[in-house]
């Protein structure tokens, strides 16, 4: 245990020092909020995956759900995640790039005006602060249980480390640390799978024990179960979760999108997003498949697990030797810290770009906004720490996060799809659609008693879509010059092909004043279409065997 403590401490010190060292090179808001637009595609790949995996959405919560419900939890990794990454990478990112924005609400503002973007920013800021508080709480709780160290000092150390490197280095430091965390999670925590499979006699061994000896339902080994499944009915996973929630998350979550906006070219942004589907698929082998074997291990070792969220921690604590346990703690901390830093950086960007610069301090110098960004980062981490005592009631926080996400993601997908694919969608229509969709999400949850998150998202998406169309048709169409370059163009090839990329680079360069680069055809092994096709084929094979 002593050596594990040293490894964990050393890891935190290294991150702190590297963040401070990196911050010396940050000079203006583009450096701070968009990492000087320097990130190559593999940075984006690692960073997006690490952003997506946290304590809430990864090892502890997803692993815990897999322990309880089985392979259905892998639908995030083997079906919807890669689908969302590839679709967002190929279609949506180009629109954000072309409009030369810092935040997703800025795109909504250019397309629909201030009203909707302000509502959207505000909703996400609440979700972000709640998420940071929940991640800090889970991280400190995890270290307390494993290393037996006090809760509050641990929480302050975690907040101090992640807060310092994000506050000082901005997106560049966050991306850098996320890549470190990506490597540690991918290489450092993968051995658990092999150790467990060795312990229980392979995947066939797990199936044999659970299906024949324990008489577990065969649905425990299905990624897309039938419609009567109490946790995740298959058709609803496809409709609500995949088409609305995951796609909305990938195309509308500021942390996910901001990493792409920090790319050195549009092609790097697109390829990075598509390539992130590879670690996403492998993620199931880090925390889903091991947790399916966990009940057998616990029963053989006589370990009692009171809460499914605690299952992963107990598993590594009882199975791994010293040193290796330290590396796993570093891996799990990586998951939490990467999520916190990305959300922290994104929320400060939104505070400055969507509120401060727009309403409070227009036309100030770039240096002014740069300093304000650092102050905003500090304010957000401080607000999140203050929220932790409330987060101590974890169920309340999970309920709040899920309710807010259901309120935001369904309506967002409704207005985003219409923004891009229907020129006639206008400001009054989008605002009426978004607010009605959000209100409808609350109504069906609170009054009709629908509790499944992705059913709520689906219906709020449908309502938003319809209301936006009706109100837009009843009011004046948007001016042509106002929406130029922000909507789908008739020529499909022009949009996704090289012509569009050249045009996008040109537009982005004008808006952001970055030097224009010559676009060269990428080598065959970096061809976006090959990567997307290969990844989709892997998903089909996985669904064929486990669907």
């Amino acid at each position, binding site marked *: 245990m002593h050596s594990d403590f040293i490894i964990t401490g050393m890891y935190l010190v290294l991150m702190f020092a590297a963040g401070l060292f990196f911050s010396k090179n940050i000079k203006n808001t583009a450096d701070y909020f968009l990492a000087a637009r320097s990130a190559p595609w593999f940075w984006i790949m690692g960073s997006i995956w690490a952003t997506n995996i946290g304590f809430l959405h990864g090892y502890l919560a997803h692993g815990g759900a897999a322990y309880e419900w089985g392979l259905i939890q892998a639908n995030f990794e083997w079906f919807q995640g890669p689908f969302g990454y590839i679709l967002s990478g190929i279609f949506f990112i180009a629109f954000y790039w072309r409009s030369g924005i810092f935040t997703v609400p800025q795109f909504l503002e250019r397309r629909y005006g201030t009203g909707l973007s302000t509502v959207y920013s505000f909703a996400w800021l609440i979700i972000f602060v709640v998420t940071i508080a929940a991640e800090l709480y889970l991280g400190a709780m995890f270290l307390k249980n494993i290393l037996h160290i006090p809760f509050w000092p641990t929480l302050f150390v975690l907040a101090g480390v992640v807060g310092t490197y994000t506050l000082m280095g901005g997106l560049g430091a966050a991306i850098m640390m996320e890549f470190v965390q990506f490597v540690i999670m991918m290489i450092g925590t993968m051995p658990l799978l092999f150790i467990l499979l060795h312990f229980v006699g392979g995947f066939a061994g797990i199936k044999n024990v659970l299906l024949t000896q324990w008489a577990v339902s065969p649905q425990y080994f299905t990624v897309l179960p039938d419609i009567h499944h109490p946790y995740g009915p298959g058709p609803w996973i496809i409709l609500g979760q995949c088409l609305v929630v995951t796609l909305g998350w990938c195309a509308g979550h500021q942390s996910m999108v901001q990493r792409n906006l920090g790319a050195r070219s549009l092609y790097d942004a697109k390829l990075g997003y598509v390539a992130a589907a590879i670690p996403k698929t492998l993620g199931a082998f880090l925390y889903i498949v091991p947790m399916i074997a966990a009940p057998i291990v616990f029963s053989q070792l006589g370990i009692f697990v009171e809460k499914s969220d605690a299952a992963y921690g107990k598993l590594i604590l009882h199975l791994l030797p010293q040193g*290796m346990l330290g590396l796993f703690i570093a891996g799990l901390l990586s998951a939490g810290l990467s999520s916190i830093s990305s959300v922290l950086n994104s929320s400060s960007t939104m505070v400055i770009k969507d509120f401060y610069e727009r309403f409070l301090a227009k036309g100030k110098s770039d240096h002014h906004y740069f300093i304000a960004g650092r102050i905003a980062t500090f304010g957000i981490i401080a607000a999140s720490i203050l929220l932790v005592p409330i987060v101590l009631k974890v169920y309340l926080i999970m309920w709040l996060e899920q309710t807010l996400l259901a309120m935001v993601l369904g309506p967002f997908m409704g207005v985003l799809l219409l923004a891009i694919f229907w020129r006639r969608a206008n400001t009054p229509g989008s605002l009426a659609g978004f607010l009605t969709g959000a209100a409808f999400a609350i109504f069906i949850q609170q009054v009709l008693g629908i509790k499944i998150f992705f059913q709520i998202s689906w219906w709020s998406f449908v309502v938003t879509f319809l209301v936006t169309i009706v109100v837009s048709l009843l009011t004046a169409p948007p001016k042509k010059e106002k929406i130029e370059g922000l909507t789908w163009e008739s020529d499909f090839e022009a949009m996704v092909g090289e012509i569009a990329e050249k045009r996008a680079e040109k537009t982005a360069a004008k808006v952001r004043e970055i030097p224009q680069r010559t676009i060269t055809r990428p080598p065959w092994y970096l061809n976006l279409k090959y990567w997307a096709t290969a990844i989709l084929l892997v998903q089909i094979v996985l669904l064929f065997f486990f669907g």
Partner: protein
Amino acid sequence: MEEKKGADPKLIVAIQMLSIGIILLTLGIAVLILSPLRTMASFLRLNSLLSTGGIILVGLAFAIGGYLRLKRVKKK
């Protein structure tokens, strides 16, 4: 308003690569030194060596790559 000139993107990537390499290398070596490899069961030892070795190798590659890039950027 006069704006500060931004950082050189190539310098940023070089520093990021070097920092990533140093962190991974240091962490990997620390885990290797602090792990009681002799007392581990052989399967655990193999897994521990593979994962730690992998992290050290990636760290080494990034540290060397970052150092070379940094030298090249500073020369210009």
